[in-house]
């Protein structure tokens, strides 16, 4: 059961990669990146999960002195938060690029942007 999240995570990563590598529309490619990132986040959280434990939030369900044994590993969850923020930044920047690319050639087909090659 604990591997379900992990497996799903990987499937999402693959789906994202598939979108990035095969979709021709730049917006779809960017969506692919978002999916890819989401997959990564799922994997991270899944890895931190320890069977039978609870979320690493110190409230009245978790006794402070026994917290270490009750909660799942908090570090990856913290990391995920950071990663989500970064992913947001990346996505925003990519969308800006998409906008500028569209402004240039009035198309969003990735194959039209091959002015630089060889």
């Amino acid at each position, binding site marked *: 059961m604990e591997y379900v999240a992990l497996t799903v995570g990987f499937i999402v*990563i693959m789906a994202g*990669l598939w979108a*990035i*590598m*095969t979709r*021709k529309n*730049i917006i779809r*490619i960017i969506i692919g*990146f978002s999916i*890819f*990132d989401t997959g*990564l986040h799922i*994997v*991270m959280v899944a*890895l931190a999960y320890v069977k039978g434990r609870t979320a690493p939030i110190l409230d009245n369900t978790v006794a402070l002195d026994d917290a270490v044994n009750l909660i799942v590993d908090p*570090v*990856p969850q913290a*990391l995920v938060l*950071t*990663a989500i923020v*970064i992913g947001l*930044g*990346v996505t925003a*920047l*990519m969308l800006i*690029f*998409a906008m*500028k*690319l569209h402004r*240039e*050639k009035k198309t969003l087909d*990735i*194959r039209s*942007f*091959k*002015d*630089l*090659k*060889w």
Partner: protein
Amino acid sequence: MISPIHIITIGLGGAFALGFVSKKAKALTTSLMLVAIALMGTISGSWLFELLSGGTETMVYTAGFKPPYSINLLMGLNEALLTTMINFVGLLGGIYLFGNLKKAGSHAVMVFLVFIMGLNVIVMTRDAFNLFVFMEVVSIATAGLILLTETGKSVQAGFKYMMATGIVAGIFLLGVIFAYYFSGSLNIDDLAAANITAIKGGAVAVMMILVALVLELKPFPANGWALDVYEASDPGVAALISAASATAFYYVLFKVISIGNADWYNIIAIAGMITFVGSNLFGVKQDKARRLLGYSSVGQLGLLMAILGLKPYLGDKLEFIAITILVSHYLAKAGLFWLAGIIEQENIKDWAILRRKPIFLVLFGTFVFALIGFPPFPSFYGKWELILALSSAGQYYAIAFILIGSFLEGIYLFRWLGYAIKLDYTKLPEIKIEWNKVIPVAIFGVLIYVIGAYTGTQMSGLDSLCYGPLLMIPFLYAIDSLKVPIKNTIAILGVATFAARVLPGLYETDMLRFIFTFIFLVGGILTLIAGYAYKGKREGFYPVALLMFVGLALIIRASNTLEFFYGWEIMTAGSYFLIIRGKKSMPHGLSYMLFSIAGAYALLAGFGLSFAETPSIEISSLSAITSNITIIFSLLAIGFMTKTASLGLHIWLPGAHAEAESDVSPMVSAILLKAGVFGLMILMIAMGHSPEATNIGYVLGWLGAITALVGNLAAAFQEDAKRLLAYSSISQLGYILFALAMMSHLGWMTAMVYSINHFLYKAILFLTIGAVVMRVGTHYMYKMGGLIKNMPMAFVAVMIGIIALSGVPPLSGFAGKWLFYNAVLDVQWYFQGAIVFFSGIIAFLYLFKLIYSVFLGQLKDNLRHVKDISIWFAIPIYTLILGIMIFSAKPEWVLQPLGDMVSQWYPNSALSWDGGLATGPYGYWNGTGVMITVGIMFMALLGWLLLVSRKAVKVKQFNIVYSAEAPQRPETTHVSYNMFAGYNKALGWLVAPKITEFWDTMTDWVHSVAHYGRQLYSGNGQVYVTYVVAYILAIYFTMIF
């Protein structure tokens, strides 16, 4: 000390604070940003100073916890150095981009600051996730900077960059999280200690981390996106990406590689070498300047990656090698990108614009030579230590890859430099000088010399005198705006002072070095005298001429292979610039340089292997080598033979010598070629006594003989007087190679006599013909004719020159022929000897053609009023003639000391002297006696003719026996063009340009491979992502199997 954490606080805080400055105060914003970077640089610089002077490194723990519960930063020597470098280039890069940043406003300025700060953190952090965060920060900042100058191309490049780095970052993150899962820590040192590669999943985690870091270094072929970025972004930004980002990311791999196991070193070494070779190969076809710099950058990173991967073989030299090459790349590539931004020319052919401001050309040349690894730049020492260390470890494939990659890089860099030096720039616009852009380039240009000199002082075995004489070069450059006579006098005085200091001592102690120093330096003085004939300023001539002579002098005084190689490269650089000065010399300069580089790499490999055997770099230790003699001897011999232009390696010579200026031809022919001879002699003295060397000597003997034949035959069919002399040089050097290869007393006597004679008569001939060409304005002999009447001085000089060259008694050339016969019979090389003799007679064909077509026959109408050669040419010419006469009249004055000298290595078996009478093992010869007999006889017969023809009257040009009508047109009466047509018909097939065709085919192959190969980079960002993914999979499968 200020805590390194403040680099971050200043960077981040500064970026936030800048938001509060008025949006309108753009100049203020940008200046404040620069102050912030300067502060960051001060912190890292002070740490560098502290650590260099013995301080201890420090670890900063954020949030008050120890890892794995917090992020920690290390400030060690490496980190201090690299952050200093990053902040320094950041500061200069910011100054360079001042105008752009100001225009773009405070957001761009913040991005810039964050970019530099991010790189600092990447270098210092010891935390894997923190690394991820700042890699992403830098990545976003880079994408932002790419948009700094927004063009359609830069937007495209930026998007491709984001796609590629997005995937890479994802893989890295995945790797980090798995590594954490298996080791329970995010700290790099903990990860390394945990040795998670032993766990099945852990190995994959490590794979993902390392492959992502490798991908950040733009490995071939998954690097199309990087090339686009280099090409399309603002050159100022590209400079930062190439210098600062690359430095930081290289260091990341440097510190993180410890988490992998030994296999990873191999993978990274191979990835690096493939990148180095592959991207330099594709660069060959590139003609867009910035993209080409991109190829070069990627290639250099590949080299650095390879060095890291070869760490197990490099031992304690690793850091020296990596830093010297990294620093060279950092300075040179930033400088080149900045230059590209200043001159704003996309096509490399338009870089001739640099000549509008010659200082830019000097900077450009400096960076190019630094990238290739010439002395006195740091990369020279880095490559030297790299090859030596690899040889010691037996990594021959790595040596081959690295040298091939460097050679390919040389192809395009020197072609580019050639364009800049030679192509027409008059149609190109003026360069816009913006001081904020020029100053960074200038600073880096100076720094690369300073650091090079400093690196030199760190090398054991390199005498500080090695760069003392080099100080003459900047001095001559500084006075380059003076007129020729002043500079020429200074140059002559410089060479003469040096000669006067070394020659007397050498005469007592070392005859061999005395003779070659004499040829190099006295020859240098004589050929420099001819320079007085030039008017105006002759810009750029004196620094490079002296560079060559200094190089030659350094070769002589080298006591170890490092010094020798140092001098060899200096000499190559100087002679390259001399050769390429000729009007049509661009392609010849390039082919000279390429053969020289290839030869130099053969030498380097040879010295490396010999070091591995002994292990010592002393030249004398070459004789202690007991195994691998064949390969070492061959490599070194091939290296030297590129300079002596032996058959197969000769195709650069005719053009290079023929198109050079009038006084440069003798310098590069009579003098420079002897450097190769000297090298061969040094080699044979040390290693010639082994049976393997004797076998190779046999091959070299045949090679020399065939070179002599083909060279002379080709010379006979030339129409260009200087080309004729150039082919003649090839052939003469073939004789010398033949004679040296005998490795016997008489053989070496012959070789020495030929070397001295060739110096004398080839200098005479090239100087005279050069002087004639200056007067008549053409190289083509059939356009001359009958010049004896206008130029008696030149005629006499050429006549003496050709008599000496042909070996006709009584002049000194015969000494060589006589020794040659005895030597050939002595070693029983009958057939080779017969070929050499045959080629010696063929020499008469071209010698006659030379003197007849130019001076005899029919004078052309347009040349009726030309004057005799310049007196400044006549002075050295007649001095040399005096030398020939003395040598001819008293050969024993030269031959006896030579005999004593050669006896040190090859005991004298049979040659004995009785006054002027020499008795060899087979024959005898009295030079003085023959001279007197011939002289008396000649005078007596002349007297007889004067008596019987006293009534002879002189007649006019066309008063000749001619059927029916007088030939009024000299053009139709002067027999010159295709003079030996019948001979050509019979033997011309021997000189069909097969070797040139061979090299042309090789060139075509390289170009074709580059042409088709680089179409890999289709321009489609998605395709590039596919390459990245494929690269990851490829490495993954390599790991599995």
